[in-house]
């Protein structure tokens, strides 16, 4: 019954997503655009990861895949939830018998769906343009697990951060200030390689972005897969969920 309600709600969320063509277009175009730009600028050499040289154009297929998921799940979720909150949509929903879990669950399912679509597109583009390897077999299964857990966790963190966003105007600056430095410090935009400064390596080790990115590298670059990466990402997701459960607001904060 509540599975049916959740799927029905996913249908509505999906409808709303595609009917805002500008938003949908850039959600998909952004990572591909970055893939092309980064590869053009920095994609001619090799980077040493885990003692193993990797061609940088392939590197960017993996990291832009991770970036796409983080954008779709963390950034978009946080900004669109803040919009719905400030527009009064959440307060209205809170006044109906719809269980909160169904509403959140539908948002997460849809974000994961978009994330998977983004990864498929990024991988296909990477395969066509940069001869990237597409994972298969057990590697693919482990990767899909990381993808789903990561996407869900970044959604939870997206819900959590709305508690720190006072109004919609502040949403994009706050969300970007939270995620952009981490994307750089975690080697998503510029490969860290084995010679990165120690403090950057430590920051990357604490936050979930690098661990998530490593899961993509394991799939696309053949580096070793670490279950600890999945655990760290899931731990952050759980923390996000707890913060959201405690501090999430259904009403505008002012």
């Amino acid at each position: 019954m509540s599975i049916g309600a959740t799927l029905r709600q996913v249908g509505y969320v999906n409808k709303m997503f595609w009917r805002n063509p500008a938003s949908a277009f850039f959600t998909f175009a952004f990572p591909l655009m970055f893939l092309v730009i980064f590869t053009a600028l920095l994609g001619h050499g090799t980077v040493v990861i885990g003692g193993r040289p990797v061609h940088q154009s392939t590197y960017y297929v993996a990291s832009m895949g991770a970036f796409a998921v983080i954008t779709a799940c963390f950034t978009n979720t946080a900004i669109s939830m803040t919009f719905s909150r400030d527009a009064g949509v959440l307060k209205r929903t809170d006044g109906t018998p719809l269980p909160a879990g169904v509403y959140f669950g539908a948002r997460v399912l849809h974000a994961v769906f978009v994330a998977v679509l983004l990864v498929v597109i990024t991988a296909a583009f990477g395969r066509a343009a940069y001869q990237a390897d597409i994972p298969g077999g057990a590697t693919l299964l482990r990767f899909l697990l990381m993808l789903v857990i990561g996407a869900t966790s970044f959604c939870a963190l997206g819900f959590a951060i709305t508690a720190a966003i006072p109004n919609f105007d502040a949403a994009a600056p706050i969300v970007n200030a939270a995620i952009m430095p981490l994307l750089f410090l975690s080697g998503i935009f510029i490969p860290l390689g084995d010679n990165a400064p120690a403090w950057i390596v430590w920051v990357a080790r604490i936050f979930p972005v690098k661990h998530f990115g490593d899961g993509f590298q394991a799939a696309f670059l053949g580096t070793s897969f670490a279950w600890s990466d999945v655990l760290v990402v899931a731990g952050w997701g759980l923390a996000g969920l707890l913060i959201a459960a405690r501090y999430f607001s259904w009403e505008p904060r002012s």
Partner: protein
Amino acid sequence: MESPSRTIEAISVRALSKSYEGVAAVAGIDLSVARGEVFALLGPNGAGKTTTVEILEGYRRRDGGEVSVFGLDPGRDRARLKPLIGIVLQSTGVDRYLTVAETVRMYAGYYPHPRPADEVIDLVGLSAKRNSRVVKLSGGQQRRLDVAVALAGDPELLFLDEPTTGFDPSARHEAWQIVRDLAALGKTVLLTTHYMDEAQQLADRVAVISAGRIVAEGTPDSLAGRDRVRPRVRCRLPGGVAAPEGFAAAPAADGFLEFAPDDLTAALHRLTGWAIDRGVELEGLQIVRPSLEDVYLSLTDPTASGPGEGAAR
């Protein structure tokens, strides 16, 4: 219009209180609303209307007092209460990219026994806009959609928080008709407003709220003894003509002679008889009763001596 189960009131409130950071927004309110009744909570901005209503809806927790909506405590039994009520908030949004029909169907799907979406859309007069995206609706149409969404679950009780604020006159009259149609369906309606005419037009009973307290309650016609107040007779005499005996009074600021006789009929008879005998014209003769607005303004005037007395005397 009252349903047979009147024994359980739709809303019952005793000694309700709520403060925000030490400032009392609601300071001891008693209310009762019967099933099938249209009840208006009338008061200026900041009087505590929305706080009261949002406590009843389950959005806010009360500090003290007892609240029951259909026998349920909105603070504790919110999940059981939600299917029974429909809420039109003061300002709300709906997701902009759905159509009117999709929006109503989506919300209807949240309720156990929804009213058919098409019926709801007809009821609020949005049939012609059924397939329009919400973004494309005018302000008045969006407000009607708010009402449609609140009705989608076929609630027993509808909360309307300042439903027509910002409407032009014709949109207000259309909105009023919707409320009358709801009342005709036997729904209980609790509406807040700061418009006198709205309360007068729609409500079976009115409570005036000021500074967190109910200062008067009754039917719109009898509020604060409005129906028992002696009407005043007003007219203007031509220059140089003295008022007849028994009607002598200092003229009002606008030059009108004004008095409140014990026996209106007899007094009018004497006055007009006197005027005909003398060939005097009684300019602008009128009989004035305090309007709901007069009563309201005196009740909610913070400088007035005490509630409930003011303009009624």
